């Protein structure tokens, strides 16, 4: 399932996939895979992404 919330949050900061990837210490392709729903990140990576985007886990990763 695509993670549109993550994509929207990143876009709201005008941040590219590469910039977010550099901030959380992963490759651009990993961010791309998470946004496309091809990869389910570990809780550690979810937390790192939330901190980078100033969001909570619920806001980015809780499926409604």
């Amino acid at each position, binding site marked *: 399932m695509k993670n549109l919330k993550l994509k929207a949050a990143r876009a709201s900061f005008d941040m590219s996939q590469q910039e977010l990837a550099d901030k959380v*210490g*992963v*490759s651009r*392709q*990993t961010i*791309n*895979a998470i946004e496309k729903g091809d*990869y389910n*990140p*570990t809780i*550690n*990576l979810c937390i790192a992404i939330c901190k980078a985007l100033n969001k909570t886990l619920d806001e980015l990763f809780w499926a409604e």
Partner: protein
Amino acid sequence: MKKKTGVIIGLLIAAAVVFMIMAVAVPKHSFRTNFNPVITVENGKAAPEFLQSVMEIGKGGRYVITADWYENEMPGFMTGFSMTDEAGNVIYSIAGGRLKFDSMPMDLAGGRYVCRFDYLCSEADYKAYAQAHQISAETGELGGLFRDGAFEMHYVLKIYESDRWKDIAVIACGLVLGLILAAIILMLARKSDAKTTHYDERQIAVQGKSYKLGFFTMIAYAVLMMAFSSYVGELAEIGVLLLIGIILGAAVTITGLILQDAYFRLDENRRFYGAFFIVITVFNLGMGIVNIIRGNAAMNGKISFTGTANLLLGILSGYVVLLLLIKYIRDKKEETA
């Protein structure tokens, strides 16, 4: 001077030292010659009657003579091979219709040696040659073997120094040199002076799947080889068969790793590796083609490891270059989308 530059210079000096040890302290002498004549036999006479080559052995030592004229079909004559020193003493001789042999190690003094191939077109010629050269001749009915015709022959003659300690020293130096060069390449490929390089969690997960696929590919290949061992064992040396298995396993693993972006660490310079693999491909394919042209691809009637290893590795590195190119195009499309 940056720390990285200092380490690279240190490694280059170490590589130069090891290379000098390998080249100067443990030289290994070998001499080789090829003939591809067409021998015409008419009324029991061969034309030409013999071929010969002079080998100059610069330094005396312990040598092994290997020769190969193992044709697909038995020619209509026997070939007698003899090696004669400067004083005219025959130091080695053997005869056979189609033959591949390795002599026992023998002490050879430095000097010129005449290596001669005589074409023996009748049973009487063959037995006379065997008697003159003190070779135990084939017994039994040989009459049907000798016949007229034109026969394309391929002779490979090699004389190489046989010294176990030198072999071990060269292999050890080669390994050390390989490790040093690998360290230099790893240093050059890093984008920064960062002390740690790492894969992210998705890359590690992809690696697990890719290595598993590569492992099962190698198992499947090994099972197939066991099933057809009697057939494939005749076609190629064991080293070639093992190398093909390794290359297949590596190719399957690398395909998953590169296409899913799990091959390079986060701070590695992909363009550097791309250029590096292109150089490796060109070098190995070039060496492979040279080996084929020189007739080294087959020895003793089988595909030889030393003659084809470069070609096989060149194909693998060429495949890596192709995958990197596909991945680069895919990434560019993804970034612009």
